């Protein structure tokens, strides 16, 4: 068991390492190079040259990369081109808000989608399944921004129940002080997660229902409902858990769009503004943070897998 964890941890570290290589490469491919990242867009060539020399950017690449890594480990992600702050400060401000949105959407998505997927599988081909699967298809095909638009139109304009914009403010508390303004963004985010999860749960359940152990359970007189919830569900769960852990990138992509639609002051909005202004240090800083979170997410999924799947937890016998 510890060997499994150790291997996973090692793999995670390698991936994070490779991501820093990617961001480093992009940083160096930029017009102007990393000097711009520190001095800003308006720097003159002379300033850049001086900077390069003083900072060691005329050093060979591996040395530069090492410096970059060291800086990263100290939490220095460079300075934003447009705002007058460090990237890390910006991220520290914004990340909790995005986490609030994504974690809530994920949890709600799980609560809605998992039982739904199971029900769909049991009524496969019948009216319930066709209707809900059809709806799920439509939702799956709907770009999040369109879904957000529809939500805004329906619930903020036609029926003015919820505000169309999230509360502004620098702290998490400011956001939470106006819970009504969180409803629509969370709903939009949940639209993304719930659909993906229920699709997967449905197909996993359908596959499991065809397995031999279900036939054994029937042959010993177990009622169908018990088969579903005490036999099939735990089996589907193990694969679904890993799927959830690996869905972090999708959830973040969704939140990027949701935040821009609802003017939600999180990392996604930060990223979009930075993209519009070609603010590379911010862009790359966000990419790095998201990548690390993704890796953490899959690692977490593996750990949960370890806890709930006895085949991984307990070593097998020689057959």
């Amino acid at each position, binding site marked *: 068991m510890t060997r499994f964890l150790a291997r996973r941890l090692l793999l995670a570290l390698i991936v994070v390492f490779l991501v820093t290589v990617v961001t480093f490469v992009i940083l160096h491919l930029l017009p102007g190079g990393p000097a711009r990242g520190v001095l800003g867009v308006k720097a003159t060539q002379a300033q850049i040259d001086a900077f390069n020399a003083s900072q060691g950017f005329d050093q060979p690449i591996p040395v530069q990369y090492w410096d970059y890594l060291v800086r990263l480990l100290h939490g220095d992600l460079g300075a934003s081109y447009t705002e007058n702050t460090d990237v890390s400060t910006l991220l520290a401000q914004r990340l909790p808000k995005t986490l609030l949105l994504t974690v809530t959407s994920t949890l709600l998505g799980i609560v809605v989608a998992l039982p739904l997927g199971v029900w769909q599988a049991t009524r496969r081909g019948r009216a319930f399944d066709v209707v809900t699967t059809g709806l799920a298809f439509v939702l799956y095909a709907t770009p999040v921004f369109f879904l957000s638009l529809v939500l805004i139109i329906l619930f903020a304009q036609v029926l003015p129940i919820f505000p169309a914009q999230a509360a502004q403010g620098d702290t998490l508390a400011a956001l939470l002080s106006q819970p009504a303004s969180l409803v629509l963004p969370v709903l939009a985010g949940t639209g993304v997660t719930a659909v993906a999860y229920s699709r997967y749960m449905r197909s996993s359940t359908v596959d499991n229902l065809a*397995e*031999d*152990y279900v*036939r*054994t*359970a*029937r*042959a*010993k*007189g*177990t*009622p169908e409902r*018990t088969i579903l919830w*005490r*036999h099939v569900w*735990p*089996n589907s769960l*193990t694969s679904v858990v890993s799927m959830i852990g690996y869905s972090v990138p999708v959830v973040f992509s969704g939140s990027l769009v949701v935040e821009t639609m609802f003017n939600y002051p999180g990392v996604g909005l930060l990223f979009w503004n930075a993209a519009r202004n070609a603010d590379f240090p911010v862009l790359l800083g966000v990419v790095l943070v998201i990548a690390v979170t993704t890796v953490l997410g899959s690692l977490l999924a593996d750990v949960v897998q370890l806890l*709930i*799947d*006895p*085949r991984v937890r*307990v*070593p*097998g*016998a*020689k*057959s």
Partner: protein
Amino acid sequence: MSVLEITDLRVSYGSAVAVDGLSVSVARGEIVALVGESGSGKSTVALAALGLLPRSAHVEGAITLAGQDILGATAEQLRQLRGRGAGMVFQEPMTALNPVRTIGFQVAEAIRNHDPKPQKHKHYHDRCVQLLERVGVPDARSRLGQYPHQLSGGLRQRVLIAIAIAAGPGLILADEPTTALDVTVQQQILDLLRDIRDTDSTGTLLITHNLGVVADLADRVLVLRNGKVVEEADTETLFASPQAAYTRQLLAAVPRLGDTAHEEQPEAERPVLKLQDIVVEYHGRKVVDSVSLHVGPGEFVGLVGESGSGKTTLAQCALGLVTPKSGAMTVFGGKLDRRARRRLGAVFQDPASSLDPTMTVEQTIAEPLLIHTNAGRAERRRKVVELMDAVELPQSLLDRRGHELSGGQRQRVSLARAVVLGPDLLIADEPTSALDVSVQAAVLDVLARLHAEFGFGCLFISHDLAVVDQVCERVAVLRAGQLVEQGPCATVLHTPSHPYTQALLLASPVPDPVVQRDRRRLTSA
């Protein structure tokens, strides 16, 4: 008094008829066997008895189980009957248990399902331990908390039998209960089934394709073919004087030890395959432990063993698919390079994956020609036609693809592909183990004919001693990676010196009920 009464059962799926007018009855304390090859409909009968057929099946006739009519029963009536009226044991113990729930849970559930006042699972633990001990599971109490993947195949099958008898049914439906098990384990399970019959007077409907198992266990036998009953008799009569032509054909097709005469073979000068002190390790464990053997030119050498014996791994070494940790291997006196591979042919066990689904039969057999020769199209076709004749397949199959052929036909195409270049060494890894008995006999015939024509040496891996006796001149017996005994078939398989070989021989049931009864008397004495 009969626990199961089936009259004129007819099961069809659309236009395909699986069972056609079958009648059988099983009384308390009686073991009735349904014997047939694949497609005979025997499994369908067992599933029908418990109402476990899929919705797409159209069922006619009458089935009465423990006094209850099955075909007209409601879902709840069926549910109550399953486990209490009859318990079912399936073929694959590896997949028949839920991998994420404990043994204790799954056994307790079998009891709890029929408890009029169901309690928490803990309440049934003592009874579970009793049941597990009854079926011969050692350390029963500690097993309750274990998971299926922690148990061997034989133990899992015992657990499944425990589950089947948990609610005290009057009938056991056993669908190929020992087919997936090693021969020695199979013997134990058969003994267990017999013991249950003796002690509890449980009736058993035994479904199998193995005539040896039938001879060992059954009181009465029904022979099925294409969904119809071809012959019905008590066991001794059926084996001693079979009436139907099909029954006689089946019995004749079963390979028997001692049927083939073996000639004395001189020691080979230049072996085509020589393995010397081969050691293969996997995760620190010795899967093959210092095994040496050789195959002379034109000689058939058998490699037998149960699962975990290392025979497959050794074959993979010979094929170059696995690199041994230590030891020496020569093929045709040298290394296994491209030139050596030209003189090598291989046939494997699973007909379903032995042919590339995207290639026609002609392309499949011609491929080695494409790889190793410059033969033009016309010449390749000529060679392919020649091989099709040699393996006795009609030319009309040349344009067909794998999924259009039967298992036996696919194995023949495999053989054709393996010998198209006229090899000097053939490695055959359980080539007929997945085939029906009569198909196996035909394929082994083809193999013998090819041997006569091409004269290749062969390393023949199998778990079936009788087949090896029929096909090979020498044999090597493996156990847990070690070579236990090696020598001419006449000696090793008829007067074995090692106790393991003796145990193997005793455990392989022969299609002769008198012999089986004598063996039981011997072993229990």
